[in-house]
């Protein structure tokens, strides 16, 4: 039932800097299906935020995108749009929720007005009608006593309430694609739980597709239908949420899953990924993760691995999946996940 609303093909983004050209995105392709939540996970510098900025046409002026990169949305290549054309897409067909609700709201503008603004701009609503709709939206995202607070300024609100306002702004015009860039990273866990529930419910109501950017695998497990793992400007593995969490194949995905303690991680079993991500001014030849990867093969240093098929929905770019590669035993925690995967598969076959 894949029905892609957005197709990203061969995306490259380079930034010219004084130090040289930073290859921030190095050949990224993915589809976003209608009504699904796709999570993009990775560390800072992996290119997840640059990917979303490109999708919103918000890249810095020194960004260079080669001609063969394509972002297909409704039979248009978004990369061909002029700034004027972008303005009818941005905040209208594609909307974004930013990480920090303090900096993404205008401190000098009343919150009700900030929610009404996209309605007035994109839907050509009159001010009164737009403010009335803003009030409904505020109630929809769970702001208590919305009538009293519609004329408040952002500084009068707590972080969680502000993030609700940001979500209301993003949802005001019923976007087809919602990009959420670490929407709960700045919030407390209890508030995070509320916001994530809210997002899930709103998605059920509106049927919009969500690209969810985060580094928190716990949040991914609860929110996503599919997951793409990014490292050093590339997607290294993608699949359904169950495939990534229970049948991970790329050693980087193993490392990410292992470096997050769950509440029952035993003392001493937290395994860190050694080293730091590579410098994208001069990306290493071969597999960019090789230098931090204890499972690296000789070929990883010479040649970049292609995507190997694990299932129709699950692909991983690691030479370990090549038929000539030696069989490796993954870390214990990952073996446990694989066992769970077999159990889940078994249940699936029975029912």
């Amino acid at each position: 039932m894949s029905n892609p609303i957005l197709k990203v093909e061969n995306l490259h983004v380079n930034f010219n800097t004084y130090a040289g050209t930073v290859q921030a995105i190095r050949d990224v392709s993915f589809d976003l299906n209608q009504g699904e939540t796709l999570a993009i996970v990775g560390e800072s510098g992996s290119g997840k935020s640059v990917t979303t900025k490109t999708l919103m046409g918000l890249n810095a002026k020194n960004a260079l995108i080669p001609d063969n990169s394509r972002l297909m949305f409704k039979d248009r290549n978004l990369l061909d749009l002029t700034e004027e054309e972008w303005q009818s897409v941005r905040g209208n067909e594609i909307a974004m929720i930013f990480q920090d609700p303090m900096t993404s709201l205008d401190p000098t503008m009343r919150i009700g007005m900030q929610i009404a603004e996209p309605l007035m701009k994109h839907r050509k609503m009159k001010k009164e009608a737009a403010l009335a709709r803003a009030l409904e939206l505020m109630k929809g995202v769970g702001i208590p006593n919305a009538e009293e607070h519609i004329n408040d300024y952002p500084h009068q609100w707590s972080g969680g309430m502000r993030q609700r306002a940001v979500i209301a702004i993003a949802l005001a015009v019923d976007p087809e694609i919602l990009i959420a860039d670490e929407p709960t990273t700045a919030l407390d866990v209890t508030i995070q739980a509320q916001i994530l529930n809210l997002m899930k419910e709103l998605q059920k109501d509106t049927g919009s597709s969500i690209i969810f950017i985060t580094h928190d695998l716990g949040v991914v497990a609860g929110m996503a239908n599919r997951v793409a793992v990014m490292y050093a400007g590339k997607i290294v593995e993608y699949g359904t949420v169950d495939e990534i969490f229970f049948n991970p194949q790329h050693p980087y995905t193993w490392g990410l899953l292992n470096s997050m303690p769950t509440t029952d991680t035993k003392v001493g079993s937290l395994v860190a990924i050694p080293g730091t991500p590579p410098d994208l001014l001069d990306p290493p030849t071969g597999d960019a993760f090789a230098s931090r990867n204890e499972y690296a093969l000789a070929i990883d240093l010479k040649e970049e691995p292609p995507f190997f098929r694990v299932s129709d929905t699950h692909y991983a770019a690691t030479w370990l999946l090549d038929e000539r590669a030696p069989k490796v035993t993954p870390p214990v925690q990952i073996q446990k996940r694989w066992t769970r995967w077999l159990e889940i598969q078994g249940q699936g076959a029975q029912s």
Partner: protein
Amino acid sequence: MTEETPKKLVELKDLQLYFNKGKANEVRAIDHVTFDIYEGEIFGLVGESGSGKTTIGRAILKLHEPTAGEILFNGEDVTHLKGKALLEFRKSAQMIFQDPQASLNGRMKVRDIIAEGIDINKLAKNKSERDEKVQQLLKLVGLNEDHASRYPHEFSGGQRQRIGIARALAVDPKFIIADEPISALDVSIQAQVVNLMKELQKRHSLTYLFIAHDLSMVKYISDRIGVMHWGKLLEIGSADAVYNHPLHPYTKSLLSAIPVPDPEVESLRKHVAYDTTVETDGKERHMIEANPGHFVLATDEEAALYKSQQSL
């Protein structure tokens, strides 16, 4: 207990710290908090922003002046230390800050940042001894010698946090307060820093107060945990007891909000809402030992109720 009781290194006795005391905008940042930290343990303090956990850390190091109550360190009252005595105290108690970008002076070389405590306390006789100490510290935290002549901006977040740790260790402290030391770091780097802190704790028999809002990391690193909310300590116990058999409804609510990296568990997880009336109805509550070593802030009836509801 069969073993002999461990030695108390830090004791907070009915500590209160009010900002704007007596005014309309009075904030009770620390509201009658009492707990001990034993020598050699890692004590985790969790709570939401505004719960007062950071203020407690700062009050112990005398970065804030308490309104009332006592702080004992190694049996001595350090609540109102000043001047030379305070300097001496801070040699044994050090802090690692949350934001390694903001807590390192960008115009000082790493060597001088790390050696600042050595200089202030005159712990090195001459320059070569000072350099040697700095190099040992760098090695200890997994950096190398030529990093000493660089500036903080030349390092990644994880490396900067290592510099912060080296600086804290420079004066050979007994006790370290780590205030959200990993919150600003990437997941893969968080594990590196936490493992380093754990290793250093063992090798130097350090005692930590580990303040964080990332509950799974606190559970992983801590021996005992205290849960704070609105300036009050609501529950205290061993990491296992607090996480697996929580007593206070707030702790239960907090734990139910942690996302778990497991889609099956996540699909079943339900966030339990917290009813704040158990804090705001004005009844007299105190710490009650519901199980050995596991305390909860409650009235007698509530404590009995919490205990009967405890999951086993």
